[in-house]
């Protein structure tokens, strides 16, 4: 009897181990941080899949206070394909917090998102699957 229990236990451990190793993983939408001379930009994409996307942007100065500014410009480009899409602009939801919706990133691969607020510019790489 004890042997059967041990055998079943070993089987369960083997199957759990295999599932942990082989389970397909999706890339989580992580916040991306980039800093310019004065400001700190944190961009969080709504998705890491190609298609229509949306960006949540938090822009602060180096001390963490919301950055002043009335319009953020987002310029997506795909250097590998030699292709850029039209820039998008958005006003703040609250000081230092912006939301850019309806970004048509229709192709999977490495994108470069240039974000600028007044004269400060950063380039944020974004990998879409």
């Amino acid at each position, binding site marked *: 009897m004890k042997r059967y229990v041990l055998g079943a236990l070993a089987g369960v451990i083997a199957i759990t181990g295999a599932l942990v190793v082989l389970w397909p993983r999706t890339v989580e939408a992580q916040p991306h941080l980039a800093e310019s001379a004065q400001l700190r930009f944190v961009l969080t994409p709504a998705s890491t899949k190609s298609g229509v996307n949306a960006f949540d942007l938090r822009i602060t100065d180096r001390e963490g206070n919301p950055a002043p500014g009335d319009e953020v410009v987002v310029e997506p480009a795909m250097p590998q394909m030699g292709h*850029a*899409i*039209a*820039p998008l602009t958005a006003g703040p939801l609250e000081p230092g917090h912006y939301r850019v919706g309806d970004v048509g990133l229709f*192709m999977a691969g490495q994108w470069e998102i240039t974000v600028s607020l007044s004269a400060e510019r950063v380039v944020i790489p974004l990998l879409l699957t």
Partner: protein
Amino acid sequence: MKRSGAILLLVLGAILGIVAPALADGAQAGADIHVAQTLGDRDLTVIIRRVAEVPGPVHVDVVTHAGSPPGEITLTARAAGAATSSAKVVLGDKAGFYSGVVRVDRGGPWELAVDEATIPFVVPALVPSPWENATYGGFIAAGVLLFVALLFAVSGRPGLALVPTAGVVAAVAVAATAALLSPSIPPVAAPGTQLDPTFDNVNDPYQRTSTVDFSRPPVNLVPSMRGEDLVLSLTDGSSGRPVDDLLVHDSAFIHLVVVSPAGNLRHLHPIRTAPGEYRARLQAPEQGTHAIAAEIARRGGGVQLLRSSVDVSGVAAKPNDGTAGLVKEIREVGRPSTITADLGKRDLQPWLGMLGHMIVVGPVTDGPVNAPIWAHVHSMIPPTPGLPDQPDESVAAYGPKVPFTYSFPLPGKYLVWIQVERDYSVVTVPTVVEVPVKGVAGK
């Protein structure tokens, strides 16, 4: 005894059931090759369909465009040491698809001749990869060993059966490891795109080479006029030898843009007539010095832009006469500007694999020959999930809005042309853009 027999059959059935569907994925498929060709007075797109089996037929579609004269062309497939196969294709009055079939009898580098134009292409050989062999070999060995083990067990020698049983475990381990790791094994350098194709490397593509940098030297372009034809001579920038390794990129070997002194544009696709020699007809040319720019991609990577100029004797000026609603949002130097053409109806066809092309030449002060910036911007067709091949010109379902985004690097006046295809005819819409140093210029 009966029970062991039944178990044996069930186990063998299960193993074969695993192996059988996997075999169907073994065949590697290439893709269709689309090549635009300015062949005499005709603008053709030659589509070499993917070769399914060797020896076997190669289906070739020749797409004619509006204004293309009817007539007959000869398709010839040839390779060193192989029998030549020809087919005649009769081109009708109507623009569209005309098909021919030639035969190839082996994998390797081939050449398709369309009258005097020659198109080198690679017929891939169906060679199973080493990891496929390990996977299938492992499963087959496991099946055979399992059968041997059962035979020993049934014949009353269970001790001896342990040996092939251990073999089953080892074979399944090999097969499973090869199958699981195969997606992460880096691909070998492809003959045709990275290596010069030969019969040997096409038929044995898994031979690894020590080369890691496949890039090649730059190219020198010398244009000249021979009768009505513009002849381009391409030589290697390091050895001076003819350059005969151009890849098909964006559906052509060379994208040749010719701008006349009066500012009229032609976008041609010269045919390969000899190693390092390409030719395109300039119909009804203008008198004067024409600015030319050729986009090429050499085997091994990277696209180059070769600029030059050529003196042409002629009389007639043939202005670009396409029209479209244009919305221009021109930003200051270095920031992305957008130009959107509205072509009215949703019936645009892909041209050179793209929805639209925008050629930018400027800033112009004393003619296009001396313009410092020369750009070719694309408006892409959104990829369709599940369709690996690009749609061909028979799909007239795109548009009507064709957007372009380009960051003009210098202030000043630019000549801009937007090109799309409709009804098998290329529409060229000319316009002029003024780029400010600061601020946004309106529409």
